[in-house]
């Protein structure tokens, strides 16, 4: 069995292509549908099978988060017995999914967590949002001036603009309207394909910043309802801390989940670096809908020059070879 690290996606992963994949008969899908009905929310199966993809509807936090959760959990179930899973990392809400995928929460508790957090985000996240700006070139190598520019604009907007996620070659910033405006005005526009950066993320609040402290406080209200247990698989959080099956401190996991995970920078880059350096896996497996983290992981590998991958081309060459470093389940 190959030694693998699972990489679980965040909220930005769901696209039109992700639709039509839920198996109505699967007990998890049924359990999710039951919970949705209880909460008076749209059926996930309906969303999954809708005639057309509606960003306003499908990407609403309360809809997209459980869709991603469900799809990720089903993916993890598929690969669980085929590999030796060394550790699980996730981006942003991927931490919540990871808790369930790694056995620190039951499927149901994980779903409740994801659902409740997404609803709180809708309730509390009206003002502000997130934007993405690449700090690497099209070859995935760091452009130091871009990083300096990003750091400078964050430093110029204390309390208004923050590093939200360290996401490989992408700087994800979050802030108030004023903070985002400053970033949009100050960062030089970059055209990559059809996308112009800095790119505002639709329906994303100022996650992973102190601006969502209200969300964190509200979330604590149901923190005790969730039955955290020792994980069965190592989890690496958004600070790069390892939570092992033998040593995980349940209270610390809970505190992190309802504290620093919500209001502090999520360092996805660091979590993958820790996974690579401390486990040296044969392969990374990106689960869940979409393939947003494939390139991100590639950029982090390039940053480390892991397995001599020092550019996008080198990464693509490895991917096309006999032993690709990254397997994406949603091709």
């Amino acid at each position: 069995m190959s030694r693998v690290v699972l990489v679980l996606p965040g909220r930005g992963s769901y696209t039109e292509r992700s639709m039509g994949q839920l198996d109505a008969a699967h007990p998890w899908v049924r359990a999710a549908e039951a919970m949705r009905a209880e909460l008076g929310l749209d059926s996930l199966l309906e969303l999954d099978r809708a005639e057309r993809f509606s960003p306003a509807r499908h990407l609403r936090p309360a809809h997209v988060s459980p869709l991603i959760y469900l799809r990720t959990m089903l993916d993890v179930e598929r690969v669980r017995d085929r590999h030796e899973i060394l550790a699980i990392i996730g981006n942003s809400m991927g931490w919540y999914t990871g808790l369930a995928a790694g056995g620190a929460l039951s499927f149901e508790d994980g779903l409740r967590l994801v659902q409740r957090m997404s609803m709180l985000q809708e309730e509390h996240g009206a003002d502000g949002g997130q934007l993405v700006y690449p700090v690497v070139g099209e070859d995935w190598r760091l452009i130091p001036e871009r990083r300096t520019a990003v750091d400078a604009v964050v430093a110029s907007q204390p309390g208004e603009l923050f590093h939200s996620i360290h996401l490989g070659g992408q700087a994800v910033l979050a802030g108030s309207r004023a903070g985002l405006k400053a970033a949009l005005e100050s960062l030089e526009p970059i055209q990559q394909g059809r996308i112009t950066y800095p790119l505002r993320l639709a329906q994303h609040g100022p996650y992973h910043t102190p601006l969502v402290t209200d969300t964190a406080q509200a979330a604590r209200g149901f923190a005790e309802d969730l039955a955290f247990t020792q994980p069965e698989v190592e989890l690496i959080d958004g600070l790069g801390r390892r939570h092992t099956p033998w040593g995980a401190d349940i209270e610390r996991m809970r505190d992190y989940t309802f504290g620093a995970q919500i209001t502090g920078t999520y360092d996805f880059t660091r979590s993958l670096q820790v996974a690579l350096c401390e486990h040296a896996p044969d392969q990374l497996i990106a689960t869940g809908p979409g393939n947003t983290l494939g390139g991100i992981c590639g950029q982090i590998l390039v940053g480390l020059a892991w397995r001599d991958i020092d550019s996008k081309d080198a990464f693509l060459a490895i991917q096309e070879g006999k032993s690709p470093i990254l397997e994406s389940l949603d091709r």
Partner: protein
Amino acid sequence: MSADRVTIVEENLDRLLAELPASARPLGAQESLRPGSSLTAARARDLFEDMVLSRSLDTAARALKARGQGFYTISSAGHEANATLGALLRPTDPCLLHYRSGALFSSRLRQVPGSTPAWDVLLSLTASAEDPASGGRHKVWGSRAAWIPPQTSTIASHVPKAVGMAFALGRARRLAMEAGLPPHSDLPQDSVVMCSFGDASSNHATALAGINAARYAKRKGNPVPILFVCEDNQRGISVETPSHWVQDTWDGRRYLNFFDAVGEIDQVWDTVELAIRTCRQQRSPVFLRLETIRLWGHAGSDVETAYRTLDDIEKSEARDPIQSAARRLVEMGAASPEQLRRILTTTRTRVRAAMEHAVGRPKVVEATEVMRPLAPVEPEAWRAAATRALPAAARKAVFGRRLPEAETSSTRRTLAARINQALHDEMLRHPEMIVFGEDVGRKGGVYGLTQRLQERFGQARCFDTLLDETTILGVAQGAAQVGLLPVPEIQYLAYLHNAIDQLRGEACSMAYFSNGAFTNPMVVRIAGLAYQKGFGGHFHNDNSIGALREIPGLAIACPARGDDAVRMFRGAMAMAAESGRVVAFLEPIALYHERDLYEAGDEAWLSDYPAPDGSEDAALLPGEVGVHNADAADLLIISYANGLRMSLRAARRLEAETGKCARVVDLRWLNPLPVEAFRVHAAECKRVLVVDECRATGAGIADAVIADLAEHGFQGRIKSVRGLDSYIPLADAANLVLVDEEQILEAAREVSA
């Protein structure tokens, strides 16, 4: 042989874990192993992982060595109980570690999210340029994030600075607060400093000096939150430590709490916790003996059977602390054998896998990269910092109604007075500056150089130390690492040799071994050189700086005149403050109170004070020489300190006698030598005399100056005069071995003829 023992010890552990029966009553993850102990089952399992990680890295080190890909095999095997310290100390308690602290390193880094202890150690073992501790320069335990300044620790030379750090922690915080500044370091108020060493190393003079200094400082009423940890494996390389030697030596001492951590892992945990708590709460020195064993010899190359019987070796192996911990964890229900097997297998596997990646990481391939952090050169920053104007009102508050530049009395215009005044100005400029040494406080220094500093800046910033140069330089390093800017005084150059490794092996190597992550900026004032008219003998007239000049990265300033001294001191302080440099400021005692140059009463050796008014020339930096008789070109005399004054006198006589005019260059900086400057003057004058008042062989700068000129194409006549290779005797006999004016004149005649 030793590789076999590695396998045997590994197999013993495997066998134990295969055979151990499960506990009757498994504990919950957060349940304590024993009532009242803070060691929970989950923490104990983490601890076991840290111990096993350390062991796996030790086996990896040997595998790497066998493949020619690893460069260090001194292991932590048998010392893994030190993981308790890594788990119980806070990451903001600075740790200066023994070289067998692998498990401690692992458990401490566990407390710092995002850290990668296995990978970091593998990079270190393989000397990769990416090694975060030292950049591939040495196998050391180091981490900026976890406050582990790297130490080589083999000769306990890190003990004095650990004491210095503990001594300075509270003082640094208080001084920052009083100056209205943010804290000088990121260490919380109740931090303690931990310093570990082996039982054999506890006999080193540096260990004894450090522990003595901690007790002394406590006796004097200072908080000294230092935790000494002696990892006692009862052996130093091949030599057995007498039974109970560590306990007999350190238990029952006043001003030193003693703890003995022995027994099962949970008992060790509890003792370590108590020792730390005592140190933290009482702000007092604590000595903790941690019982360990040594597995696999001193290092990979050590054939242990040459001095131990197989039976003895096997007895040690039977006491393997990882086996003991495994037994205890299972016995107490803190872990199942299966859990421990999983930890062991997972850890071994991941270390082996990471090792294969680590061997391919980049190495250091350029000498410039090797030397990059050693002695940063940033003259623009230095100049800007050293020449920044000081506010007049603040200066008046310090100096009283008369500023140094307005002084007219000759006693206030000497070299000694000018250095004293410069110290006042710099104390004003740098609120983090502290001055200390023997007799520098109330007395104001043997020669009055630090007079009134304590009165004006308080006892916290100018204070007397005990009579020990090792301690003085240890305090300087420790204080510097917590953000102070120390200006220690070494009373006489000859005394420095008692402690010089604190500069050579420690202070000057800090930035180098930590790849620039840690620095210990300081300006060490040293009164020295000869010509005290027969008084004092050798120990007050030492004329050798060879031991300073060979220290990598050390800058040496040596002023001869008062005005130069002021400007050079500003430059030296800026080098320390801006670039973390260590600078020796060598002051010629015989010129401290000298007034005259050519004739009695001419007062030509007195000087005006360069006011700190923002002018560009208010400071001098390395490379900047003093040029006297600049228009002369018949002969170039290169000298410094007492030699400068004698050379100027000889030059005047030469001119009177022969009409030949000598240009005299004062080197001012004895390391690095101002080669660019003297090459130009030599080329212009075509004849060179080097006047070096130090002893002839390797003690001064003459060889280096002459070699440099020769290697850079100087074709003219060249000669030197130097002291004899002797210690300095008393009375007039001193002059028999020192360079004198007549010798200079004679040589000048010869060279210029």
